[in-house]
């Protein structure tokens, strides 16, 4: 089997990708969180009853609007979505690695997993 990238290189890239995703999202969440506490710290929390999040915090499109408007909850949610996207990016990278190795079976398998993840994230299967 001819590998365009060797295993150590792939592992190194994946490790760096995961670290970058976690650190970046934690920083965004922390920044939004501090702002949130400054703004709403003295309010009464309302988590006893489930009401569901407002529409703009549920979809990627809405999040963009929230972040543009410098909404602190929107910024935290952006950080959380970055965190959720980290393993998705890893799977996407694995597709490329298998494709470079000309491993068709595993390109197909990995693409299927990637498709399931993207369907879930884009809300096509939220029902």
């Amino acid at each position: 089997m001819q590998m365009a990238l060797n295993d150590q290189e792939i592992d190194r890239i994946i490790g760096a990708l995961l670290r970058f995703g976690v650190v970046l999202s934690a920083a965004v969440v922390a920044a939004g969180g501090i702002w949130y506490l400054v703004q709403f710290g003295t309010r009464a929390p309302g988590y006893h009853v489930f009401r569901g999040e407002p529409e703009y915090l549920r979809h990627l499109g809405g999040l963009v609007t929230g972040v543009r408007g410098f909404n602190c909850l929107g910024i935290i949610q952006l950080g959380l979505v970055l965190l959720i996207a980290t393993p998705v990016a890893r799977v996407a990278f694995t597709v490329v690695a298998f494709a470079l190795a000309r491993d068709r079976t595993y390109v197909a398998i990995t693409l299927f997993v990637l498709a399931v993840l993207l369907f879930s994230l884009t809300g096509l299967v939220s029902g």
Partner: protein
Amino acid sequence: MNVFELTTLVGVISLAAGFLGALTGLGGGVVITPVMVLALGVDLHYAMGAALVSVIATSSGAAAAYVREGFSNIRIGMLLEIATTTGAICGAYAAAKISPSFLAVVFGAVLLQAAWMSTRGHAATLPNQPDDPLANRLRLNGIFPATDGPRSYKVSHVKAGFSLMFVAGALSGLLGIGSGALKVIAMDRVMRIPFKVSTTTSNFMIGVTAAASAGVYLNRGYIDPGLTMPVVLGVLGGSVLGAHWLPRAPTKVLRRVFAVVVCALAVEMIYSGITGRL
């Protein structure tokens, strides 16, 4: 209690859970949901959403450290991800249709299983295994760096492991957990993959499985940024501290203590579910 106090409290609990989770290998997310529901009166769906996102954080954080050691098997992981991600979406979909009382009982049962698993060791030497032709065809057999040099291993019972992974994924989506304990059973006990390969591959799979559930949770409005923020940052900080302290930690004692805590939470969850307090 105002938002600031609640955030601080949830952050401290999550820090402790992440710390103990890293030391015991049970993962921190699994205890956060019952603690928030039982002690702080948080709605089950919000608690599940917050814990689920924290599971992704610890999985990615730990995988970044493990990946260089060459233990995890990407082929096995990817193949089984087909089962766990589709299972996760089915579970996450079902979570909205099932009553919180029933969810609490299932949660309790899963906690009991995880606690039981954590106190038991694993088979050090595996008996002769039947060759699975499917494993050969899919080139799942691999090599891992053992203490005495690279050692090769074969994978058996691919179909049974795959089915069990669907269940693990469904529970992950249903309860907002990583279901690492069940994943390790499927790989270690059923597919007869070496323990170290099972745990690291499972860890990598947990993040991908949880991401599949998290998409549905996000669209459903289960992920509240204000509540999830201290959980994610707390668990992440706790697991980093735990990983640092791990070489000097009395893991055997800790594992037993943590198992008792998890059992107590499990019983309380089941009781709350049956009496309809949730």
